[in-house]
């Protein structure tokens, strides 16, 4: 049964452990019902990526529930899980494009969940989907690159393709795992702006893991500060204090 409408994402008492007895995520509770960019900040190794990957089940949580479209994602398997994944777009730090396929085909990969393997193999994309892909490429400024191979693009261009692929899914939520960490500061800002635009246009939340606190404050409507596998701060970007940042990242010398 597919979700036809989006009624928010609710994470309740989520735990995740790679090694038994050493949890990475400890009792995470997050409730997302608004649209716009929501930044998750915190030091490396605190479980930001793991949290995002638990939502679309690239990682399997060990306890807790993730409510999305009236279903608990942690309980889904096989086809039911794939049907929910179609509505969760994901953007990666290393772009994770199919290097030897063209830009257009990479964007069309966002429709794979909606088509059979046979049609994917024969490249029988629907004309609506193709029109939409061209429109998206136009929007992210890559219309001239449609037939170029993905491995000929620069980092910023690749990330645009990555975002277009995720948006192509018609997602009810976007997850972005360090989308700007491999990019220069100017390109990073452009990518954040692009994601903000899509959040507004599609009226969806965009959950972004990010290292750069200033970039997070600039674009996020809400900041979730994680430290040691727990949520330390969850609120507006204005409300986060230096005291909070000290607790989240530890120490204070880096603030100067």
């Amino acid at each position, binding site marked *: 049964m597919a979700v036809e409408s989006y009624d928010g994402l609710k994470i309740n008492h989520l735990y995740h452990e790679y090694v038994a007895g050493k949890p990475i995520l400890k009792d995470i509770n997050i409730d997302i019902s608004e649209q716009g960019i929501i930044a998750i900040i915190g030091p490396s190794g605190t479980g930001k990526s793991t949290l995002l990957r638990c939502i679309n089940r690239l990682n399997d949580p060990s306890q807790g529930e993730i409510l999305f479209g009236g279903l608990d994602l942690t309980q889904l398997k096989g086809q039911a899980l794939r049907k929910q*994944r179609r509505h969760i777009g*994901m953007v*990666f730090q290393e772009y994770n*494009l*199919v290097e030897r396929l063209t830009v257009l*085909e990479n964007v069309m*990969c966002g*429709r794979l969940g909606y088509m059979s*393997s046979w049609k994917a193999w024969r490249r029988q994309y629907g004309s609506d989907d193709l029109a939409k892909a061209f429109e998206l490429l136009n929007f992210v400024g890559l219309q001239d690159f449609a037939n170029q191979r993905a491995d000929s693009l620069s980092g910023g261009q690749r990330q645009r393709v990555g975002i277009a692929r995720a948006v192509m899914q018609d997602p009810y939520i976007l997850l972005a795992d360090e989308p700007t960490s491999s990019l220069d500061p100017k390109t990073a800002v452009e990518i954040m702006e692009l994601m903000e635009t899509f959040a507004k246009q599609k009226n969806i939340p965009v959950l972004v893991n990010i290292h750069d606190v200033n970039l997070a404050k600039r674009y996020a409507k809400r900041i979730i500060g994680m430290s040691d596998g727990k949520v330390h701060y969850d609120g507006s970007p204005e409300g986060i204090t230096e005291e909070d940042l000290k607790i989240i990242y530890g120490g204070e010398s880096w603030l100067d």
Partner: protein
Amino acid sequence: MTTQMIDEQWQRFTFSERLARFAVYLCLVSAIVWSWQTVEVIPEFLYDAPSQFMDMFERMVPLDYTSYPISIHGAMIETLHIATLGTLFTLVLAIPLALLNAPNITPSKTLNWIAQFFLVSSRSVNSLVWALLFIALFGPGVLAGIMAIAIRSIGFVGKLLAEAIAEVNMGTIEALRATGASWGSILVKGYWPQVMPAFYSIVLFRWDINVRESAVLGLVGAGGIGVVLNDAQNLFEWQKVSMILVSIFVVVIVAEAVVIQIRNRLI
């Protein structure tokens, strides 16, 4: 003062390491000496080798060109058919085994090992021995040759293909999983584009090897040019033998050139 002393006494290896290295060299030299003694070369045969060689060379020239259209050409085409059909037939079994053997596609250790078992058994037997087995099954002829080539190649193609699959960028695969793509779609859109260059490279390389191997298979009766070569040798038709050897050489060179051309275009 002390540092200088240490510097002067610096040595790359410790005393025991040097002892071990010396022992390895000693073993190597004694192995060569020992094996030379056991070979038991008969000196008389060795001494007249140059004159024997000249004798054979004289019997082999000039090449018997007239034999080419009569018996060699057809057998040569048969050899190429054995190599090509054998390589194509290999794929039918090698691709599924490679998929089963690659741990990132088949997470089950047991299935990995079962696939590994078949790949290793295919490789551990020489194609001549496979040919003898299939001649016993199907009788002498082309079919035995094709089967011998096919079964011997499974291990080679399957192993290299499994390694190519295991080395794909898993980030891309995860990205496709995250879109809700089915297993089959991930295979054709995630794995295949990444494995394709290696796949063609492996298959062409194996075809190249198979052309050479199928030329030999005839010696045991599995069809192709080898049968003609064997007959000519048994009948002491040395000028025909040299014609056959030159033909094989030319075909191998041409095959090599063709493979290089195709590989360059594909990758």
